């Protein structure tokens, strides 16, 4: 659906998001919606990547702190954060980001694998890279982002 035929061969559509100044891309077909992070409840004893849970139109969404996930410095708590809604295995998740960017159509043949020297924490969740004119766009693998492992949280 998101694939379109462009001048440079097949195109893929990505939602871009800004996290700590870095531009990331998510395949648009994986994104359900984008929402403001309001009235979030923190979950005691949860792993640090879990920002909390919130009610999004009657569904309980688990918010993942992307900065924490990518090992980035914590957000200035005064800013109202946004989240990208994603559904995996009938569960709703929200990836907490700083800002939502444009939707980009990018030719698939320009997609390239992540550089070998990328921070392992990023490498684990990154699918590859697009070299945009001004900056680099890191494409995230949603499933890997959400694979926080069956870590036994000490309770």
């Amino acid at each position, binding site marked *: 659906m998101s694939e379109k035929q462009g001048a440079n061969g097949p195109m893929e559509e990505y939602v871009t998001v800004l996290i700590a100044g870095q531009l990331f891309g998510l395949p648009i077909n994986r994104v359900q919606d984008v929402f403001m992070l309001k009235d979030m*409840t923190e*979950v*005691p*004893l949860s792993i640090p990547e*879990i920002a909390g849970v919130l009610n999004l139109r009657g569904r*309980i969404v688990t918010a993942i702190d992307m900065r924490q996930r990518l090992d980035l410095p914590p957000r200035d708590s005064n800013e109202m954060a946004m989240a990208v809604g994603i559904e995996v295995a009938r569960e709703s998740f929200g990836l907490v980001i700083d800002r939502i960017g444009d939707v980009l159509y990018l030719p698939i043949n320009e997609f390239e694998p992540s550089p070998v020297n990328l921070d392992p924490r990023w490498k684990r969740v990154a699918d590859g890279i697009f070299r945009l004119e001004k900056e680099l766009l890191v494409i995230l693998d949603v499933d890997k982002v959400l694979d926080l492992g069956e870590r036994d949280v000490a*309770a």
Partner: protein
Amino acid sequence: MDDLLQEFLTETVESLDVVDVELVKFEQEPNNAAILGNIFRLVHTIKGTCGFLGLPRLGALAHAAETLMGKYRDGAPVTSDGVSLILQTIDRLKEILEQLEEMQAEPEGVDDDLISLLDQMSLGKMEAEAAAKAASEAEAASAETADARTAGVAADGMLTPTDEPVQSADRNLKPGEVSLEDLERAFNEAPGPDLSVPAPQPAVPEAPEAKAAPAPAPKPAPASAPKPKAAAKKDERRSGDERRKAGGSGGGKAKGGGSVKSQSIRVSVETLEQLMTMVSELVLTRNQLLEMVRKHDDSEFKGPLQRLSNVTAELQEGVMQTRMQPIGNAWQKLPRIVRDLSHELDKKIDLEMIGAETELDRQVLEVIKDPLTHMVRNSADHGLEDTADRVMLGKPEAGRITLSAYHEGGQIIIKIVDDGRGLNAEKIKAKVLSNGLATEDELERMSEAQLHRFIFHAGFSTASEVTAVSGRGVGMDVVRTNIELIGGTVDLKSVAGKGSTFIIKIPLTLAIVSALIVEVSGQRFAIPQLSVVELVRAHGEAGHRIEMINDTPVLRLRNKLLPLIYLNAMLNLPSGEGGGPGERTAGKAGDGREFVVVTQVGSQTFGVVVDSVFHTEEIVVKPMSSMLRGISMFSGNTILGDGSVIMIIDPNGIAQNVANDAGVQSVSEEHREEEHAASAQELTTMLVFSAGSEEPKAVPLSLVTRLEEIDPAKIEHSNGRDLVQYRGKLMPLVYMEGYDRSQLKTTGGQPMLVFTDADRSMGLVVDKIIDIIEDRLIIEITSDRPGVFGAAVIRERATEIIDIAHYLPQAFGDWLERKDRAPQEKKSRDLNLLLVDDSPFFRNMLAPLLMSAGYKVTLAASAEEALDMKDRGEAFDIIVSDIEMPGMSGIDFAEKLRFDPDWGETPIIALSSHAEQSLIERSRQAGFYEYIGKFDREGLVETLREVRVEMEEAV
């Protein structure tokens, strides 16, 4: 037509399931006309509908089965073979239905094998019957057959005048059997108001059956008339049960004259799910509106909004209800399965099902259906011994499998209990070793329970032979996986030779739970109301005060010490005062702003300290995200009326942590419960400490007056003993046997247990106070060592139970021979005292005390034993009896003695660890002289003296 077929399929499959169950029941009580009537009717309906839909193969089978059942109904003896044959037919019907569903048409094939068997069986019966009956009765017999079948067949006849004869024409009529034409004639000719007006709707085949009962009365078979009538009546009652079982999906099915189809429709689960989401949305919107209107006092919206609010609430409830189904639906097939197994394995098996009406979410039901079936099969196959073995072991011939379901603490607990051989630990060990799952060394250290849990590992089966039924080793791990998939747990306990119990706990996903909303550190949480016993406000001064025992907070609640847990500490939240969780203790204790939620999980009771308590709210439990499931403190989350998400506290998780916190391994409370239930019933609160050596030691907490920490510098040495100044007096210190004085701490506080009797105190020096544990106290190994009663298992650790009485004389040589007791010793004769107590600990503790107070003590471990003594002619001056005892209770014992010619005059004193007023009242009424707390030694001695004085005065 497709819809009609679909409808027919689902309904018929359901009916067949019911027939399955009913047939098994019928086999057990062949004389129950109601059951047979029910089966007959169901099969008959299937047959009728088959004819209507043009499904000759199904119709012919159903017809043959019906014929045989018709014979049973007419009184032919019911045989196991016959029932098996019918069950086989039902299976064939199901097979055909399956194919029918796939192909939308009846599959090709012949069922002559079954039909001829069925016919032979019917024929055989008929011949026997025919021989028994005189020829002159033939007419009556045919009339009887007619009236039994009149209604249904006649209705059929009207429905399917073309289809029905096709079936009958397939074969010749058997003797005694009547042709359809005859039946129709009989039906039409039979007088009766109902019959003159043929049922107009073709969809009510059973309607006339019930009503037709009186019709044949005038016929020359008077005896047969009341029978169907009674059956019809019972049928009606049964239909009620059935409806409940079917959880609404059955609607008015099988009701005396009701229509089969009109009462229910089938809706896909997705639709319901969607509806549920919409309703939640609606609730939230309503709440927002309410909030807005609340700000304007005289809003014209108020009235309509109130109505909207009510309707929404009802709607919400209604939609929730649609998802709930009784668990009995998942059990429906089990009686049949067990019956078949019982034949296959040649074991006698009784299956008992308790709590079939327990409701749970439909989806959950689907998931646990197969695991349950598997586990019941397992129990029947592996769990239960062969009949011969059972008899040899002195067990009842028939093995028993009990399946029960109930709600507990926001969970559904399903138990599968068998009274078979239990798990074989040795076999498991061998298997674990051969599979390389653990080393011998590891196995050695494992508790039996841990060992048992290996059966949940993949590819694990201890059955030496793989039977057709189970033992393929793919079972239990699949069961576990399935159950864990829906956030449930499965555990087992097993006692060799006694049987095994499997416990499945499933969270009530999407179920409504009443919960208490509490706040701690600014966050709200829900605690399921089910586990909340009461709410206590901890006051600063009087009443309920939070006290510390070596940094362990406790609350004195009536006569008990309640261990406390600070919720903020448990959840790692900052305490309200801004300090870390470490500061929760002394600083906060007793500032009067805390609420204690007294919570009970199984037999464990504890207090959860929270900052504030709001209200109770009906919440919808939503399953937690898979990422949060590892947190045992929470069982789920929910959306509150104001739209915010809060976590639901899992009391079981807390209970486990209570134990973990104390550094003791938590064990399934129930496990011990059952192991020890036979030997003791009451819980004793024990203070566990260490002194001298690493092994934990314990004393009953109620004997301890205080726990103190004394500055070692203040310990003085005088006249060969250590003393401290304590509350303005000198208190002697005593050391445990084997305790080296050099072990005394030089800095910090030296902990000690203070025992006070009247105005004297003694300090027992210990190294460390470990914990306060409420547990059943069973002294398993008695000891000859002075100062030790013996060893008991407390929280899975062997613990020495200390005999305080041994140390008291060390502090004061005359402790047990004090002045106030002196007069008693001057009595010329010792009074004979009978002490009845089931707990060896109390017998051991009280006996020396009573002896030292000048009584000749005889011990009895039960009321029964005491009564035996009575029968042997023994006599006592005073009886002291425990109230709570297995078997005959103290109250019953007292009542029995009250008017006894021999012992009726003997004063009897009650001992109990409970001090409820009602119990005190009851014991007085039962004839007890006085009611005394178990550890109130002084009270006991005092009371005994009173009795003594009274007795003397009487003399």
